[in-house]
């Protein structure tokens, strides 16, 4: 069993959805029930494999790549079929394999127009392969292939099953992402050739950068290319404009997957690829990433205050929340990046839930115009309470998951890593803290307008407006339980991610210079780049690293 998982576990988890797709292709489209069953069983099977992986996962060595596979894939370009998971990828994989079956259950009886469950479910399964693949890939080329694989299904999901403005939104989504990834590919290649690495495997590239020494300018350019590619996917201000459109037009399930998993591909890229491989360039770029992150926080929040459509509001809140994640990443500290991983999981669960709720409300009210809503707590009390809980989680109430993403990210900005300007990040910290106030503002205001009060005359006697249905309960309960569980016991995530994050950071980023002698600083050999001198402390002790 263990051996089987070791060699094949990740491959099975990644490609099982494609087997499901192959089976579904053979079944005629008219047999809808059979399609739903095949898709559900496939996604549950993937979830089961992931749970088995979790059970077998050696929690004592989260920094080590486990279940690793390394086979030559494309010999001519020295690309490997290299898979493996550590404590950073595991939570995200679990999130993915949880969300997909829930989405299938949620859409069981109400597929959006133009219906066609066969095609819709096939796209979801293809998406699953792409998402899981991105999180397990340990080779740049393989990573790129999976990263791109999610594009087409999401494009069609928005374009075919989306809202009235779907053509514009889907094309915008597609072009933005592809533009980023085209430049990202060029920087991947430049990285490979300038370092003369043995292969595209992450570890080889990191070694090659460390030992061969790529020129500083080249590193900065390469990091810049990755910043564009990953930053558009996150999305960071000012590349975020595709997100509100895509979210507003996408069908409910599409929005959920987009928010819960797809956005994480970008932040994951930073944590997994950009920072470990190019730490020196990361230090240079960190203030700018931090700046864009806090602009995103404030801009997203102000954007939320101005929205009249509930779905669009949640989309803008994503921009703000991903700003917190990026701020945590920009500190380049163990603490900040752990906060980012937590933020990714929390945002996936909470914003995913909010989009589910938005979809269910749209189905009942046929509109998400906030000014026309109201009185949800009266008409559908259970749904109203769930909505309230998610709003509280989203604004970062302690005891719910959102808190553990936001608060540590802000705190980590107090003492960024060696070489990152401390004063700048303390200013960012203050601004980000203000952002949480704004977040509370727009979220509570949304709750007040949509859920409190009495129903407007328009909907007062609408028989359409019912409380939470069975399908909705099945889809939502696991997510709600996790939001609370992680909120109460955040170590569920931190225990997995901490070791891996720590190992992914260059030692010069985290060394505490105040305890070193001059000789020891000299021995590090990186004092210049990371501005380490005897007796100074970048403030690590403050956070108690």
């Amino acid at each position, binding site marked *: 069993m263990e051996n089987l998982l070791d060699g094949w576990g990740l491959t099975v988890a990644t490609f099982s959805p494609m087997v499901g797709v192959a089976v579904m292709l053979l079944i005629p489209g008219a047999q809808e029930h059979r399609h739903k069953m095949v898709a559900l069983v496939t996604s549950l099977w993937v979830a089961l494999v992931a749970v088995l992986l979790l059970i077998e996962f050696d929690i004592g060595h989260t920094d080590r790549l486990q279940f690793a596979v390394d086979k030559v894939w494309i010999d001519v370009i020295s690309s490997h079929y290299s898979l493996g998971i550590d404590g950073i990828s595991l939570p995200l994989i679990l999130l993915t394999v949880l969300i997909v079956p829930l989405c299938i259950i949620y859409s069981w009886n109400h597929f959006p127009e133009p219906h066609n469950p066969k095609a819709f479910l096939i796209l979801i399964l293809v998406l699953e392969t792409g998402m899981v693949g991105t999180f397990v890939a340990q080779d740049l080329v393989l990573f790129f292939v999976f990263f791109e694989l999610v594009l087409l299904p999401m494009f069609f999901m928005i*374009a075919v099953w989306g809202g009235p403005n779907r053509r514009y939104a889907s094309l915008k989504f*597609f*072009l933005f992402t*592809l533009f980023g990834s085209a430049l990202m590919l060029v920087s991947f290649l430049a990285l490979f*050739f300038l370092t003369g690495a043995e292969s595209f495997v992450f570890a080889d590239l990191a070694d090659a950068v460390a030992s061969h020494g790529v020129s500083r300018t080249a590193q900065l350019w390469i990091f810049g290319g990755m910043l564009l590619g990953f930053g558009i996917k996150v999305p960071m201000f000012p590349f975020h404009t595709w997100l509100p459109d895509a979210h507003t037009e996408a069908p409910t399930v599409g929005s959920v997957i987009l928010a819960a998993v797809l956005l994480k591909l970008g932040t994951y890229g930073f944590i997994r690829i950009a920072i470990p491989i190019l730490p020196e360039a990361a230090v240079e770029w960190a203030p700018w990433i931090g700046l864009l992150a806090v602009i995103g926080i404030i801009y997203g929040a102000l954007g939320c205050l101005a929205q009249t459509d509930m779905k669009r509001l949640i989309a803008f809140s994503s921009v703000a929340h991903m700003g917190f994640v990026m701020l945590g990443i920009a500190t380049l500290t163990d603490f900040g990046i752990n906060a980012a991983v937590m933020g990714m999981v929390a945002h996936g669960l909470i914003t995913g839930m909010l989009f589910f709720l938005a979809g269910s409300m749209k189905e009942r009210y046929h509109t998400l115009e906030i000014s026309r809503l109201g009185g949800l707590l009266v008409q559908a009390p259970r749904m109203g309470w769930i909505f309230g809980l998610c709003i509280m989680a989203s604004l970062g109430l302690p005891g719910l998951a959102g808190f553990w993403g936001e608060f540590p990210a802000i705190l980590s900005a107090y003492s960024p890593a060696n070489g990152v300007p401390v004063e700048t990040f303390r200013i960012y910290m203050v601004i980000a803290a203000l952002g949480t106030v704004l977040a509370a503002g727009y979220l509570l205001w949304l709750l007040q307008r949509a859920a409190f009060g009495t129903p407007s005359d328009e909907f007062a006697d609408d028989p359409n407006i019912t409380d939470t249905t069975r399908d909705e309960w099945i889809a939502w309960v696991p997510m709600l339980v996790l939001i609370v569980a992680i909120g109460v016991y955040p170590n569920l995530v931190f225990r997995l991610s901490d070791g891996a994050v720590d190992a992914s950071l260059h030692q010069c980023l985290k060394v505490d210079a105040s305890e070193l002698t001059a000789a020891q600083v000299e021995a590090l050999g990186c004092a210049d780049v990371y501005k380490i001198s005897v007796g100074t402390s970048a403030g690590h002790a403050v956070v108690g690293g």
Partner: protein
Amino acid sequence: MSVELLTLAFERPPIDWHAFAPEITLLCAGALITLVDIVFLEKARPYTAALAGLGVLATLIPILTLALDGADRTMFGGAYVVDDFALITKAIFLLSGYVVILLSTNYVAEGDYWENEYYGLLLASLMGMVMMASSRDLISIFVALELLSIPAYLMVAWRKRDLRSNEAGLKYYLMGVFASAVMLYGMSLLFGVAGSTQLTHIADALVDAGPSVAVITMGIVFVVAGFAFKVSAAPFHTWAPDVYVGAPTPVTAFLAVASKAAGFVALLQLIYVGFYSRPEVFEPLIWILAAVSMTVGNLIALRQTNLVRLMAYSGVAQTGFIIAPLAVAGHSGAIGDQALSAVLTYLAVYAAMNLGAFAVIITLARRSGSAEIESFSGAFHYAPAMTVAMTIFFGSLAGIPPLGGWFAKFEVFRVLATAGEPWGYALAVIAAVNAVIALYYYAAVLLKMWAEDAPEGDHRPVPFTPSLTSALVICGGVTLLFGVVPQVVARFTDVSLLALGG
């Protein structure tokens, strides 16, 4: 001694029959079609296409045996060479030719055109391509080029009573002859320098001639420009859109894939065997052709309303991608080899995905009778399989993993980056930006097919035919295979021409 010379002069040059077996098989197939038609007249019509297809497939057998044999065979003092490069390109030509026959079967039969002549000409043109792959001499290159072009002129004008088809034929003919003339002029200049038509001799003469001889530069520029017409590289692409629209669609597919590939093969041989010592001449030339082709092709493609016209401009842009690696090919021998395999890889993938796209267009246009993009709207509702197929082919043309095109584009980027020159990086960035522009028009067509309603709610199903279906299956399978296991194509295209030339 003198007696020996005399007897030698009267002896026919030694011929390696095994090396010639593909050409002879193809010739026999063409002759057989003509004979069958003369003997059986109308009764033979239903079988002509099958005969032609079998002939092409039979030609692959000697190519296989030659590949297994593995030895390089040189004939006529180096003018005709059968090596790995020749074999792999011949295989690409023949397989694309076979798919074109599959595409033509119903089109020609339903249009009540002259089947025997059509397939005869198609095989003749293929014959020119197969010869082109082995030609390492200006004269044999030129003969092969005319042999592949002249039947193509006729086939473009095949819809005899259609004005557009006639216009296309005439336009293609005039442009083609003009290009041949330019090229011949360039060849005459090179012959003047080298005193020989053989590419290896020209290569030696170019090395001996010293750094700056204007005649050599002019010769190279003219020859390359002549082939730029053939491969429809901007600014020599103006014939392509009109000819593509006017020609019968299977012939368009043939021109867009096989005929274009033949132009590239000739270009590769000329550059690698002949001009390799002059990177300062051909590199900037190719750089400009590549950058201009990508940009012009993509920008004009954005505004097209006819799908075949769009394919013409997308073809111009793809040409830019295909030749881009040659812009750094002279950097060093290793990069030259990589550039060669990048071009061949792209050609192989391009053949599969482009023929596939044309197969979908032909199938869907059989129903609506129109190639306007509007008439493809809502295809997802009445032809979901076709829509998925088109998504695979267009996605591949746009270079989205895991469809074959991504690996081809990846190889181009890789070679440009490996050279490590600012010019290479600049071209890579231009290519990256163009890849995104191209995505817009590919995605716009796909959006119409997936997301819109069929015009006038017309949901009749699409009539499938066995030959079109098999063409789709072949192209789709190859496109996916190359994307998921690129090693397959990379293994075959890992060949070199430099061992011969320099």
